[in-house]
């Protein structure tokens, strides 16, 4: 009976929290409109959230591309189709690995930083102070960070894929001797703009919205103590990662149209 009650409590709490998060998102979107005339606030956040995440994205992208090159070559060469390596690397990156791995890294680097920053602002009464100065913290603090994340995420995913392709080229053409012309031409023929690239972009936009939403909400909703901020940061990374992986399946199923 107690277990049932506890379970019920967890469900009710989760639904209530989801409701609050949705209302919060609505307010953030309303606040975002007001940022049109103060776009420099968003640009600052694109820098903080995007540019400062660049290093981890580029290095990861390069290595993921190199590993794809190695693994792909070893499998393809058995069927005598090593020339398709470029296509394999590009499709894997653009459709799947680019958006997903970028989103996971983004949640770990930028998402956790956003949550901690906003949570600490709350703990040190900066948000309350802003409210008392008649400045809406959702418009001034949350909305620029949200938009910054939503803008930065697809750009980061694109860079991840681009440098991943270069990594695959480095290993496939440079080390394993795949023909460079075949590598690029197969890729050019096989990658469709609408079916592959646009789908990847849609994924990264969705992941950007979800990851940044979770990060700013967890920060704003954090219990204003050091323990509260720590667990909020923790939740950001866990929820973002789970949401990205779950949504990835749904989006893939929708775009392939086979489920």
């Amino acid at each position: 009976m107690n277990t049932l009650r506890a379970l019920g409590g967890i469900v009710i709490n989760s639904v209530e929290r989801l409701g609050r998060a949705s209302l919060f998102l609505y307010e953030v979107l309303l606040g975002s409109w007001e940022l049109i005339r103060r776009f420099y606030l968003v640009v600052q956040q694109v820098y903080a959230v995007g540019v400062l995440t660049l290093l981890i994205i580029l290095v990861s992208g390069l290595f993921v591309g190199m590993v794809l090159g190695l693994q792909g070559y070893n499998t393809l060469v058995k069927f005598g189709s090593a020339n398709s390596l470029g296509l394999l690397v590009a499709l894997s990156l653009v459709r799947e690995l680019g958006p997903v791995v970028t989103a996971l890294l983004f949640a770990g680097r930028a998402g956790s930083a956003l949550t901690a920053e906003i949570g600490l602002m709350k703990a040190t009464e900066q948000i309350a102070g802003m409210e008392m100065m008649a400045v809406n913290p959702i418009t001034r603090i949350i909305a620029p960070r949200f938009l910054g994340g939503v803008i930065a995420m697809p750009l980061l995913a694109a860079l991840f894929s681009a440098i991943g392709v270069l990594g695959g080229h480095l290993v496939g053409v440079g080390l394993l001797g795949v023909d460079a012309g075949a590598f690029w031409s197969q890729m050019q023929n096989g990658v469709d703009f609408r079916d592959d690239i646009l789908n990847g972009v849609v994924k990264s936009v969705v992941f950007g919205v979800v990851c940044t939403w979770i990060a700013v909400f967890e920060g704003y909703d954090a219990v204003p103590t050091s323990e509260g901020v720590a667990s909020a940061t923790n939740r950001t990374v866990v929820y973002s990662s789970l949401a990205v992986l779950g949504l990835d399946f749904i989006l893939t199923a929708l775009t392939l149209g086979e489920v």
Partner: protein
Amino acid sequence: MNQPRSGAQDGDNLVDIRDVRLSLGGRQILKGITFSIPRGKVTAIMGGSGSGKTTLLNLFGGRLKPDAGQVIVDGQSVPDLKTKELYELRKRMALLFQTGALFTDLSVFENVAFPIREHTRLSEPILRKVVLMKLETVGLRGARQLMPSELSGGMARRVALARAIVMEPMMIMYDEPFTGLDPISKGVIAKLIRELNQSLGITSIVVSHDVPETCSISDYAYLVGDGRIIGQGTPAEVQQSKSEYVRQFMDGLPEGPVPYQYPAGDYVQDLLQGTA
């Protein structure tokens, strides 16, 4: 300063609190409290930790709503205001937080400039002059380039004070302005509160448990305890009060109407039991 006047009986009050009740987290913080803050004076609200002093400031600023009773600031009922009206009212009031609540990512100058940038479209040269004048008032014009992390506790509070007065509000609420400061900084803050009150004609509300500093600068004092007003008058009157509550607080006695012990069961029984 020694005028024998009562805020509660004065017609010209900036803040009127009538029979306000409020519970937070299942605990009743305010139990039907009634008092007024006169315009243009320094009014102290004193009381022990957890007596609901800061809660009162949050009621004035509309950050909390009472369960029952009225909160009237400058003729407006704060709990009934719409968000936009509340923000308009807040533009005319300032709250100095205990920690200062400076924005850690902005310099001292930008912190003070923040409310102006948000609410007005002053040109950069005029904004600079206004900010420097306010910083000069608190003696920190030379510290304008520093970041909040480079300031001492007293300096941070003075910067926060400059930020609070930059929009020239009708009232400033000070939440524990003396806590955690050395004697010199305490004296500086006390002097500033008094001077700002006189030079700008601002209504000042000082919430504090620091008896000597607060009494030295206030025109009228309220003592809050157990969610009610337990004593009031000019600082001199309060200090001579015969009330047990007031005596315990003013003299800092560990035992009195406010118990030293947090309510607990029988001591011996508690020790003999095995579990926590």
